[in-house]
């Protein structure tokens, strides 16, 4: 297992390098805005723009720029400075990390807490009215875009904008360390919105897996032993049905991160998603690079964790 983790980590680092290089290439090959001109403003002279270009190091060939970037990254873990406002990308990302973690982890928890029980209930009574209602509802949730769902939830339930003022307003985020109650209140709608589509999908998947697993021979054995049906379902059935779901969840974390960008924008949560969005609008390559790398790291890391977790979940799996 140790060797496996080392190998995976090396691959992950290589992958991150490739991702950062591709981001550089894409930024330089496809027409995005000229950062020097954007920073200089509309009335600036061409000479001033060239000066800014030199100051930002944008006059160098892009492979040189990449090399400089890479050196900073590897030697000092320096993610560079925003073209747009000269802020350190690393400190921006780290200062926004708690918000993004709050959104994604909370969303993940909500997604699992809703998706799995709904799937179980549906699976126990397939084709019942409850099953039909829940699976129908999940279809709606899967199809609705996060952005739309977010706005609707704000206009229904948020303070300031909602018909029922139950949850915190958009933009009311505070760090958990400052006030856990406000923190929770400001995020609850975001979590539910983010979780909705995933929860719906996972409810359907849990239902399908569980129905399938409940036909397995070992379930029959469990019943033949005289176990309670509740134990048969929640222990023997779920144990097997949830294992592939954990793997799926690991892969979907990338999607969750994508959803978090939209969620952060709708609910005005100052996280990395919001930062990424602004970076793209401002053609701010260092910030784009930083957020892309962060996202890639997050996904790679999540996948590694899931793979390791899977070895514990399924004793038949071994990594050499």
């Amino acid at each position: 297992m140790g060797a496996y983790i080392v190998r995976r980590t090396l691959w992950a680092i290589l992958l991150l390098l490739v991702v950062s290089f591709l981001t550089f290439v894409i930024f330089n090959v496809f027409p995005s805005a000229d950062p020097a001109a954007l920073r200089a403003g509309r009335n600036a002279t061409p000479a001033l723009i060239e000066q800014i270009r030199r100051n930002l190091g944008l006059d160098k060939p892009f492979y040189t720029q990449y090399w400089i970037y890479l050196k900073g990254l590897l030697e000092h873990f320096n993610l560079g400075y925003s073209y747009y406002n000269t802020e350190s990308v690393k400190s921006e990302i780290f200062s926004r990390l708690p918000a993004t973690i709050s959104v994604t982890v909370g969303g993940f928890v909500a997604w699992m807490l809703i998706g799995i029980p709904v799937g179980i209930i549906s699976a126990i009574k397939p084709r019942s009215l409850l099953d039909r209602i829940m699976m129908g509802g999940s279809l709606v949730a899967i199809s609705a875009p996060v952005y739309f769902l977010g706005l609707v939830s704000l206009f229904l339930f948020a303070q300031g904008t909602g018909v029922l003022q139950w949850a915190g307003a958009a933009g009311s985020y505070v760090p958990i360390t400052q006030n856990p109650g406000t923190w929770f209140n400001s995020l609850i709608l975001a979590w539910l919105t983010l979780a909705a589509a995933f929860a719906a999908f996972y409810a359907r998947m849990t239902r399908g897996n569980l129905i399938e697993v409940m036909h397995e021979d070992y379930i029959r054995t469990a019943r033949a032993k005289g176990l309670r049906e509740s134990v048969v379902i929640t222990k023997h059935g779920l144990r097997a049905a949830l294992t592939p779901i954990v793997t799926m969840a690991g892969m979907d974390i990338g999607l969750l991160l994508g959803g978090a960008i939209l969620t952060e924008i709708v609910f005005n949560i100052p996280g990395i998603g919001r930062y990424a969005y602004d970076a793209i609008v401002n053609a701010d390559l260092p910030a784009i690079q930083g957020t892309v790398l962060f996202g890639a790291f997050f996904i790679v890391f999540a996948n590694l964790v899931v793979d390791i977790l899977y070895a514990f979940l399924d004793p038949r799996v071994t990594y050499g």
Partner: protein
Amino acid sequence: MALLEIEDLHVSFKTVDGVVHAVEGVSLSLDARKTLGIVGESGSGKSVTAQTILGLTRFPNATISGRILFDGHDLLTMSTEHLRDVRGARIAMIFQDPLSSLHPFFKVGHQIVEAIRAHEDVPRDLARKRTIEALRSVGIPSPDERFTSFPHEMSGGMRQRVMIAMALALRPDILIADEPTTALDVTVQAQVLELIQALRDDFGTAVILITHDLGVVAQMADDVAVMYAGRVLEQSSRETLFTEPEHPYTWGLLQSIPRLDAPRTGRLNPIAGSPPSLINVPRGCTFHPRCPYAPPPAFETEPALAPSQPGHLVRCHLPIEERKRLWQSLQKEHPVLR
């Protein structure tokens, strides 16, 4: 009074293709300490019958009627809660494929402990001790190490021994063994059968042995029922069945037993044709499409399961004399094992 009495059992399942009539009017009885063999091809209803005894066919799409009396109670009408006390503790069951029948994610020891603790309020360490004992009694070497093994880490024979240990850990009155050797290596098959036999003799457990292999029955059973298309076609003591079989289907089964003392021709003597669909069961005798001797009435009406002599029930339109004559001549061509 018999230990287990199955009376006129009917089981059918609604499926998208139509209603599957899996069991049609089966009546069987099992006495204490006895072994009942149920023989038939796949789809004959033998496994469904066995599983219905433990209520394992209680699905929303199943229709079940008849009676299964155990200890004076009807298992079919018993609440799931009460049935749970019977399952595993009084009637235990082992299955064809021990790999798929053991949960892949739990250690084998745990799976047995779980069975014990489902019925007896014993502390964990005591349950563990008993489990190791049970593993030892089924001949698993170094059982305390094996306790923490996962099913995939064991051989097929070992896995079936685990299943048997699990089934017998609570000393049930009845062990239902559903094709217990089918998925195993030939060499291991004999060992497992011997094990079941030995345990039966030691513990005095009654056994329902379900198999498609008459050879297995010949080795173990006291009584035998031959099933086909959800029905019992012939039922008797083992002795009678092997010496005086009266149903053409039984003859076919007997002739398809591989013989060790005859020269190998490279192929067995299977019964021509294939078992009928249980959705569209043939009119008349269910076996007539495959029966070389079927008399005209067999095409129209189903024969009743009738005694040809005390303790020997046969479901056939052929006159008794005719059956005996046909069996005699078959014996000359192709003697079967005795």
